[in-house]
């Protein structure tokens, strides 16, 4: 059986408000902390939706669009950079599982 990569996997997820151009991000990351004092940059590899990435210059970026609301980054970041909340049902993104 073919193993799926992450984009293929995320392609199977039903997101809410997918058509909306403007969404209210439910997670806010202070990347200033990521790029100065964070010793491990753990969220860039433990997030199961790869919302945290490191660019060629070693800088951390965050995007909320692919987030599947698992909660992992809220615990994994012990640097105080992650302000975590649930998405707003009307103007946020977030998931609707078909199976769960």
């Amino acid at each position, binding site marked *: 059986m073919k193993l799926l990569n992450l984009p293929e*996997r995320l392609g199977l997820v039903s997101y809410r408000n997918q058509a909306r151009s403007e969404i209210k991000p439910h997670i806010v990351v202070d990347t200033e902390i990521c790029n100065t004092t964070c010793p*491990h940059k753990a969220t860039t*590899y433990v997030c199961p939706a790869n919302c945290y990435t490191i660019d060629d210059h070693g800088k951390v970026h965050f995007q909320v669009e692919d987030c599947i609301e*698992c909660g992992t980054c809220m615990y994994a970041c*012990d640097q105080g950079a992650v302000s975590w909340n*649930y998405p707003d049902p*009307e103007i946020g993104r977030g*998931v609707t*599982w078909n199976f*769960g």
Partner: protein
Amino acid sequence: MEDERFDCIVVGAGVAGLAAAMVLARNNMKFLLIEKGEFAGAKNVSGGVLWGNDLARLVPEYWKEEEGGWERFINHRRLTFMDEQSTFSIDFKSAHFNQTPYTGVVVLRSKFDRWLADKVQEAIDASDFAMESFIAPNIKVDEVLMEHDKAVGIRTGEEKFYADSVIIAEGVNNLLTRQVGLQDDYVPADHVLTGIKEVIRYDQKVLEDRFQLNGLSGMSNEFVGYATDGVEGGGFLYTNRDTISIGLVLGLKDLRKKRKSPHDILNHFKAHPVIADTIRDGEVIEYSAHVVSSGDKRLMPRELYKDGILICGEAANLLMNAGKAIQGMDYAMRSGILAAETIVKAKEKGDYTSRTMKEYRTALDNSYVIKDMNGFQDAVHMLHSPQMYKDVPNLICDFGRKFFSIRNEPTRKSRELMSESIKKHSSYWDLVKLGIKGARSL
């Protein structure tokens, strides 16, 4: 407005909140069940097997319903130790488990929770408050309203709803439990795991033949060892009607330390030769992830009640995982039932203060939930020790390989083979220590 006031507001229509709501409806309470998802279950992920028989307390004879919310009943259980090439399983199947009430049913939450919510709605319709109790999806509770340190309702956006009590059944990512001061604002990664999972579809006949399923019977399989690629935790595979749920739970602190990605480890698990054979030719139809508690009591909130507030389900980190099963949903169900029963009593007494709320804690302490959590803490710790997720599976598989190889040479005694495997992967002394721990903890 006083007449708009509810007896209770339940936050979260997962297993815990739905169980609570069912008991409230049956006892003619006026309540509001609020869920942020599009419908009950829309946001929820489990493996998952709902163990035990509490479901029949909420929906009597649920098994008689043709299109019930559950997938299959478990009559076949397997615990598998893995190394790189091999699996060594303890396998138990019994016709005893074919009888109702079942001892466990596999569920997919998006379907199961929605079905259970329909049952709750039926109970509301039959209650004195058919027109005044509601299940309200698509609403996120932003805050529990407190007056003089007692809960008086909730706020969502600009809107406020008032009630004599609030049951917080918000699940493991318990923001409201933190807001009311029962849990620290930042919870470290130490005792939580990231659960990750795929649902894979087959032709139903293929699935039934492959797993020897008959009618609606099903199998649950837990895995330790190679599955988690050296990270603490374990794997699971459960059979649904025409799909399987396959996934892992991975210690988050250990993932961070070992710099590994959960989605890579899931592929590592699926690529194992024995697993690859088992799951071949299926089509992945969903990928999901969710944090899950470890079952370590140190994760629990400081207290599970306060004036006008009760915390239940995984919001209270009620969970057991000592290797042979994950029990989060049955704990959620029981604690939801006990929380609602306490609210019913509080209404009778006209006292929603801690004095009455405390009875929930007492009832929970006397139930199997806290008794098992207290009794099996050592087993929970042991599952998260490297011997358990590394050395033991390796040595068991090493032994298995030698024991089951027939070579047209003089056959060696198993004792000798075992001691060789032990020396290779561990030491007698470590095993004696583990054995003592194990004997004590189980």
